[in-house]
C-alpha cells in the first residue's frame, strides 16, 4: 500500500507541473497586450514599458514561469489587474461557495443515482429499469444551463417559491447555514445534481447487473443466504467503483460550475472566471484555473488511493 501511495504521488508530480505550464501559457496564447485592460488606450510607450516591468512581463518566458511557480507555492497568485486585489484571496473566497454547491449537488445526485441504478440493475428490463434508463439518458443529455433556466421559470417566475439568483438575501456573497441562504442553494444544487445522477445511475446499473451475473451470487443463494444478505454482497462489490465515480464527479462539478453559476449568479469560481474573461483580467483567469485544476488533480489522487485502500482486488492485480 505504501509503495503504491509513493508511486501514485510521484506520478502526480509531472501532472502538476504540466497543469501549471498550461495555466501559465494561457496568458501568453491570449492575443494582444496583457495590460490592455488597465492602460488607457493613449498610454505612452514609456508608461507601457514601466507597467510591463512592474508586472514582470518583460522577462523571458521561462523566468516568468519559474517566478510565477515560486510565488504560487507560497500562496501568492499575483494581483488582479482589474481590482488590484490579491488573486489568491479572491479565488479562495469563491472556491468555498463553489465547493458548497458542488458537494451538495454531488450528494443529491449520488443519492438518486444510486437509487435508480440499484433498482434498474436489480430489475433489469422491467418498467422501472426502462424509466431509470430514460432518466439517466436525459440526465446526461440535458444542457444543464437550460435546465436551470427552466427551473427558475417554474419555481421562481411562476410559483414564486424560491429565489432565482444569488447566494443569499440582498446579494449576500457569503453563504451562511440559515434558512434564507438555504433557499438560495436549492435550485442551483438541484440543477447541478442532474449530471452526476445520470452518470451514477448508468454506472451502477451496469455494475449491479454485472455483479449479479457472477458465479458467487447463485452460490450464496444456494447456501441459503437471504436476499438482503445477497444485497449486502452486491453493495460491498459496487462500493469502490461508486466512490470513485463520486469523487471524480465532484471534481468535474467544481471545474464545470461556470455555466450554472452564470445562470444563478452564484458567487463562486465560475462567476469569477466570467468576470476575469470579460475584463481580460489574465492573472485572475490564470489563478482561478490553476486552483480548480489542482483541486481536480488532488481529487483524482484521493479517489485512486481510497479505492485501492478499500478494494483488496486492486492491490492484488
Amino acid at each position, binding site marked *: 500500500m505504501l509503495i503504491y501511495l509513493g508511486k501514485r504521488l510521484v506520478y502526480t508530480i509531472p501532472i502538476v507541473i*504540466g497543469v501549471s505550464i498550461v495555466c501559465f501559457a494561457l496568458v501568453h496564447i491570449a492575443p494582444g497586450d496583457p495590460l490592455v485592460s488597465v492602460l488607457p488606450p493613449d498610454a505612452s510607450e514609456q508608461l507601457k514599458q514601466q507597467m510591463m516591468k512592474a508586472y514582470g512581463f518583460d522577462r523571458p518566458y521561462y523566468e516568468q514561469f519559474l517566478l510565477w511557480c515560486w510565488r504560487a507555492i507560497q500562496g501568492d497568485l499575483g494581483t488582479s489587474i482589474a481590482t488590484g486585489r490579491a488573486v489568491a484571496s479572491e479565488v479562495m473566497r469563491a472556491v468555498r461557495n463553489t465547493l458548497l454547491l458542488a458537494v451538495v449537488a454531488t450528494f443529491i445526485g449520488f443519492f438518486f443515482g444510486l437509487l435508480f441504478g440499484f433498482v434498474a440493475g436489480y430489475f433489469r428490463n422491467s418498467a422501472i429499469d426502462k424509466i431509470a434508463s430514460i432518466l439517466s439518458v436525459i440526465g446526461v*443529455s440535458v444542457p444543464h444551463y*437550460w435546465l436551470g*433556466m427552466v427551473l427558475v421559470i417554474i419555481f421562481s417566475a411562476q410559483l414564486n417559491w424560491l429565489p432565482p439568483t444569488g447566494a443569499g438575501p440582498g446579494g449576500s456573497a457569503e453563504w451562511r447555514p440559515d434558512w434564507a441562504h438555504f433557499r438560495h442553494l436549492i435550485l442551483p444544487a438541484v440543477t447541478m445534481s442532474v449530471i452526476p445522477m445520470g452518470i451514477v445511475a448508468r454506472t451502477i446499473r451496469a455494475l449491479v447487473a454485472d455483479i449479479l451475473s457472477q458465479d458467487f451470487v447463485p452460490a450464496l443463494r444456494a447456501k441459503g443466504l437471504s436476499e438482503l444478505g445477497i444485497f449486502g454482497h452486491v453493495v460491498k462489490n459496487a462500493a469502490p467503483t461508486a466512490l470513485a465515480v463520486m469523487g471524480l464527479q465532484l471534481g*468535474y462539478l467544481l471545474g464545470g460550475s461556470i455555466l450554472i453559476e452564470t445562470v444563478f449568479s452564484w458567487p463562486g469560481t465560475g462567476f469569477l472566471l466570467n468576470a476575469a474573461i470579460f475584463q481580460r483580467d*489574465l492573472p485572475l483567469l490564470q489563478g482561478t484555473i490553476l486552483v480548480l485544476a489542482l483541486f481536480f488533480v488532488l481529487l483524482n489522487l484521493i479517489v485512486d488511493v481510497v479505492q485501492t485502500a478499500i478494494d483488496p482486488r486492486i492491490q492484488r492485480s
Partner: protein
Amino acid sequence: MTSLSSLMPQDPAKTIAPIEKSPGYWAGVIRRFGKDKLAIAAGIVVLILLLIAVFAPLLAPMDPYAGRTIRRLRPVGTDGFPLGTDELGRDMLSRLIYGARYSLMMGVAPVIMAFGIGSLIGIIAGYVGGKTNTAIMRTIDVFYAFPSVLLAVALSGALGAGIQNALVSLTVVFIPPIARVAEAVTTQVRNRDYVEAARASGAKALTIIRVHVLGNVLGPIFVYATGLISVSMILASGLSFLGLGVRPPEPEWGLMLNTLRTAIYNQPLVAALPGMMIFITSISFNVLADGLRNAMDVKV
C-alpha cells in the same frame, strides 16, 4: 454514452477493444441497428435537423435578423409568428431554423477535427510504442487533468470570444480522449499475430498501419467519437451562452438562450425554446451513438 461532466468514460483506455470482425460483420451491424427502434428514431431526428440546417433559407418564413421593437416578445402562437418573437422582435421560428446551422456546425465540427488529429496522435503513439508513446501519452494526461468544461472555458476565455476560437478550444478539449482511445486500441492491434506476421514478412510500417491497423482501429474510435458529439453540442452552445462563442446578432441556440434570459418573466415558453432545441439535438446524438455502439459491437 458520455456526458458533459465526465466528458468521457472514466478511463476508456482500460475498457475499449478492437472489434472482432467476422465474415458478414457489416450485414450484422445493419441487422442489429435495424432492430433498434429508438436508435433509428434518433437517427431520423438527427437527419431532419441536418436537413433543416442545410435548407434553412428555404424553410425560414422570415429574415432571422430583421427585428422591430413594436413586436418584441410575442407569445408562441402569435399570428405570423408561430413560435413568437425574441427580445428584439425577431421571428423565433426563423431564428431557430437558422440556429441549427451554427449550433450543429459548432457541435459537430470540433469532434470531426479532433477525430482526425486525435486518431493520428493515438495511432502513432500506439504503433511506435516505447518512449515516443510515453512522451505523447503523458502530455495527453496533462490535458486530462482539466475538467472538460474548465478547459474549454479557459482556452476560449484566453483566446477571446468568437466562432473560430471556440472551435479551436473545443477541438483541443476532444483530442485527448480520442487520442487515448486510439492509442489503447492500436496497442492491442499491434500485438496481434497478423501484424507480427506482416512485420516478419518485411512490410513497411506505413503499409502495416494502412492495411492492418487502420481497418481495425477506426471503428471503435469512430463510435467513441460519435458519443462525444452530444457533449460537444452542449459545450459549444454553453460557450455561446457565456458569450464566448457565436456573437450577436447571429442566431445560435446557446446565444439565443442567453439573450432571452431577461424574458423568463414575460414569455417563459419563448425563452425556453432554444434550450429545448439543444436538448433534442443532444439526446438524439446520444441515443444514436448508443445504438451505433451496440450495433457495431464496440465495448467502450
